[in-house]
């Protein structure tokens, strides 16, 4: 048999065959005219998406001889609808019924290692890998069928997993794979794509996971029930870095149902037969434990000065080494923007189930990264990685690095203390609020200038931030590993470099601005533990940058939308801006007192989805309360596999960002974190959500997938801030835009 690696066909070659749905060249090189057989490539090409790390076809797709098809992804369903979208891609490219495909998600024993499900990269990584793998597999099947039937591939088409010749001869995928190995490398340019004729990709298919979730089927790791399963709860220190000085566990051990009190250094937990028994034992342990010492936190009001005094690594990440001075005659604008710590605040506190038996540890977790989590847990428990299996099951939406991995580590420690019985641990609300890693507090200072002609003559932007990723991989990044005796130390955090960026994500303007200069001050020391929260630094940077664009537009007396369009060259960027503005009715908007409109745009990471937001709101003069009315977003995610899924993400991101922007701030003082529940950390409730949210998806068939999940966070925040400034005539630069702050601003 010819090796498949040699069967490479270039896309150009394939397209020469014409644009029909099922025109294929024979897959075997001997059927190709000599001059079209691929020559040796000078350099090995980087394979698309996650194929670059997992190039084997059978890592992604398996077909059994009974015709059943399983697709594997190392990414996890997080409520973003990835299960449905990835299945659509496979179904389209394989030309099989959507419902026939089984999709297996992140499991260290079964799926490829795709790192973290983060950064809105599932479609770019996994989607692209599956697109190419499935397209290649279909070509292989046609090639096999051509040989089996002795006909030309041009004579064959696929109907729901069956290759059919024009004479009506058939071979099913199941028959064709029988006795053959799919353990072959997927070549670059593996497929033949004809987006004009897609019937599954591009459709807003209903999400496959929703009916089960809405009728109470087992859908989340929280719902997992295993034979003999017992329940655990943890007790955390009184405040970060406090030491467990004294504890008598004898009373707790006698409580009904209690099976084990687990104590290891400053780590404390309890396992009981029943869940409520575990909660009562946890409460008893909490009152019995005496803690001493612990980090002394500054007051939350002083955090920005505190952060700016800490050692920082300062780098000019964009533009000239030295700042450009504003020329004479230009209007100079200076602004300082702040953003407090904000939390993921998952509605379901973190949960995991661990089972330790015969030296094997299995963890069911809503982690975003089963492989890195496995590495960390193996290191923490001093086990061989091969003896640890981490299986993803859904949790409540996480929006980044929340308590999931730490809860998985809890399950590991607790299950090891009670071998043979599956142990389910769930955090209480205060654990989630007080111990999840937060989105970093940040400061941005900008100085810019503009001429009356509207020309921007200088732009000097500086951002101060704590880390935006302290995810496990190293055990020291797991909270429980920091608490056990022989504590693991957290790894020295690093910043994610541009172009994606971490602290500086979206700090570089997407506009053409001569001599724009961007400096990042990366502060590694964390007064409060921080990590990835949906969109990382982009939320703050887009808030600041797009607020500042409005400030400059105002100084130059130019309409903010016009001001943006004047320095946007990318036609796709211009498209989302004009689509959002037109859909909102920007140009014939009617002003009335207390009413404002705001606009903002960003391309997420300057390389993923494009998103623009226009909205209007009312500010109540007496209370300072902001009420968002109509919000409109436009988005370009490249080829839209499931437009309604994109709308859901953009709309959800916009509403979530509105909650961050209007309400959210982690409260703390010398005694620790004071935001211990939803009363201490209010988020948006129904009466405050926008009146309407409309999302316009600009589809780009055939274009690469662009990550969408975090695209609207930044633009929504800036559009709100801009609309508030428009409504009250005063700019508020400190988040959140709470009523008190709005009232104070109006008095000035």
């Amino acid at each position, binding site marked *: 048999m010819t090796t498949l690696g040699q069967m490479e066909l270039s896309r150009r070659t394939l397209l020469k065959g014409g644009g029909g749905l099922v025109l294929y060249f024979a897959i075997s090189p001997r059927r190709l005219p000599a001059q079209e057989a691929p020559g040796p490539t000078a350099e090995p090409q980087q394979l698309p998406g996650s194929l670059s790390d997992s190039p084997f076809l059978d890592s992604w797709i398996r077909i059994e001889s009974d015709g059943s098809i399983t697709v594997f992804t190392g990414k996890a369903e*997080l*409520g*973003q*609808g990835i299960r449905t979208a990835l299945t659509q891609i496979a179904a389209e490219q394989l030309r099989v019924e959507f419902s026939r495909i089984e999709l297996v998600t992140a499991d260290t024993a079964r799926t490829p290692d795709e790192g973290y499900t983060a950064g809105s990269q599932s479609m770019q990584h996994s989607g692209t890998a599956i697109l190419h793998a499935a397209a290649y597999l279909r070509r292989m099947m046609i090639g096999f069928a051509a040989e089996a039937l002795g006909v030309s591939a041009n004579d064959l088409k696929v109907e729901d997993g069956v290759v059919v010749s024009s004479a009506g001869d058939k071979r099913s995928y199941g028959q064709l794979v029988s006795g053959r190995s799919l353990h072959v490398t997927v070549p670059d340019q593996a497929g033949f794509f004809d987006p004009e004729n897609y019937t599954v990709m591009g459709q807003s298919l*209903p*999400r496959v*996971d*929703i*009916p*089960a*979730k*809405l*009728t*109470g*089927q*087992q*859908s*989340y790791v*929280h*719902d997992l*029930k295993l034979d003999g399963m017992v*329940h655990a709860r943890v007790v955390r220190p009184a405040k970060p870095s406090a030491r467990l000085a004294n504890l008598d566990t004898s009373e707790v051990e006698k409580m*009904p149902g209690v099976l084990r009190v687990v104590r290891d250094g400053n780590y404390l937990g309890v396992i009981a037969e*029943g*869940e*409520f*028994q575990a*909660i009562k034992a946890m409460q008893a342990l909490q009152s019995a434990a005496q803690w001493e010492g612990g980090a002394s936190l500054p007051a939350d009001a002083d955090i920005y000065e505190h952060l700016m005094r800490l050692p920082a690594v300062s780098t000019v990440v964009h533009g000239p080494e030295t700042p450009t001075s504003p020329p004479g005659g230009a209007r100079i604008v200076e602004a300082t923007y702040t953003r407090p710590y904000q939390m*993921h*605040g*998952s*509605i*379901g*506190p973190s949960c995991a189930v661990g089972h330790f038996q015969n030296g094997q540890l299995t963890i069911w977790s809503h982690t975003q990264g089963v492989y890195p989590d496995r590495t960390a847990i193996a290191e923490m428990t001093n086990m061989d990685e091969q003896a640890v299996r981490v299986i993803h099951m*859904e*949790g*409540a*939406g996480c*929006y980044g690095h929340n308590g999931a991995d730490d809860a998985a580590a809890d399950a590991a420690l607790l299950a090891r203390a009670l071998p043979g019985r599956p142990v389910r641990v*769930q955090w209480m*609300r205060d654990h989630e609020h007080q111990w999840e890693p937060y989105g970093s507090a940040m400061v941005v200072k900008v100085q810019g200038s503009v001429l009356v002609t509207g020309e921007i003559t200088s732009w000097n932007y500086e951002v101060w931030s704590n880390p935006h990723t302290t995810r496990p991989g190293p055990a020291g990044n797991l909270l429980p590993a920091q608490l056990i005796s022989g504590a693991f130390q957290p790894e020295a955090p690093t910043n994610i470099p541009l172009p994606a960026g971490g602290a500086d994500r979206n700090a570089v303007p997407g506009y053409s601005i001569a001599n724009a200069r961007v400096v990042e001050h990366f502060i590694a020391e964390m007064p409060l533990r921080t990590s990835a929260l949906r969109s990382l630094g982009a939320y703050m940077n887009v808030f600041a940058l797009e607020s500042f664009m409005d400030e400059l537009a105002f100084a130059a007396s130019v309409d903010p939308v016009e001001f943006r369009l004047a320095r946007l060259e990318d036609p796709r960027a211009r498209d989302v801006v004009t689509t959002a503005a037109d859909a909102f009715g920007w140009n014939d908007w009617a002003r009335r007192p207390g009413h404002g409109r705001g606009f903002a745009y960003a391309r997420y990471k300057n390389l993923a989805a494009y998103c623009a937001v226009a909205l209007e709101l009312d500010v109540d003069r007496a209370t300072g309360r902001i009420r968002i009315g109509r919000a409109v977003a436009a988005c370009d995610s490249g080829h839209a596999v499931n437009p309604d899924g994109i709308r*859901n993400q953009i*709309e*959800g*991101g*916009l*509403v*979530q*960002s*509105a909650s961050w922007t209007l309400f959210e701030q982690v409260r703390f003082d010398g005694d620790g974190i004071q935001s211990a*529940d*939803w009363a201490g950390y209010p*988020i*948006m*409730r*129904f*009466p405050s*959500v926008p009146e*309407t*949210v409309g999302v316009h998806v600009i589809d780009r068939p055939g274009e690469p997938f662009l990550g969408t999940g975090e695209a609207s966070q930044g633009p929504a925040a800036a559009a709100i801030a801009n609309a508030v400034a428009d409504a009250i005539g005063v700019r508020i630069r400190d988040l959140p835009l709470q009523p008190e702050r709005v009232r104070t601003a109006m008095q000035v």
Partner: protein
Amino acid sequence: MIGLRVNGNRFETESDPETPLLYVLRNEMQLNGAKFGCGLGQCGSCTVLVDNRPVFSCLTPIAMLAEREITTLEGLGSIDNPGPVQRAFIEEQAAQCGYCIPGMIMRAHALLSENSAPDEAIIREALEPSLCRCGTHMRILRAVHRASKGLQEQASAAGESNR
């Protein structure tokens, strides 16, 4: 021993009478619909109906519930035959992670059984105790409007055929 009536079935539990209903539903009766979110009455994820009124099952001890009529998400319909409110939520694709949605559905169901044609403000007020972190609010509102429309159509159809 405490006897509970859940979704029309009788269930006896030997759990401590102060155990909140939520844990009995989830762990003893394998009813996953009601979720733990805060245990404090702040988020509504655990909402079930007791005598048709929404309550926080995370705060309600089973001792208070003997012989009361308890309805959970599972009592409204099944995956093969979802109830009208569930169906409206599915049709509107009103979920992201979906964790908060069972509580939303229970609250919407309670509202619509009292008032089949609530306006937007009334719906928002009724759902106020329930938090959603994914920002699915707009879809949830659309789903409740859709369910309400369905109920009114049903009622008018029934009215026609009774005539």
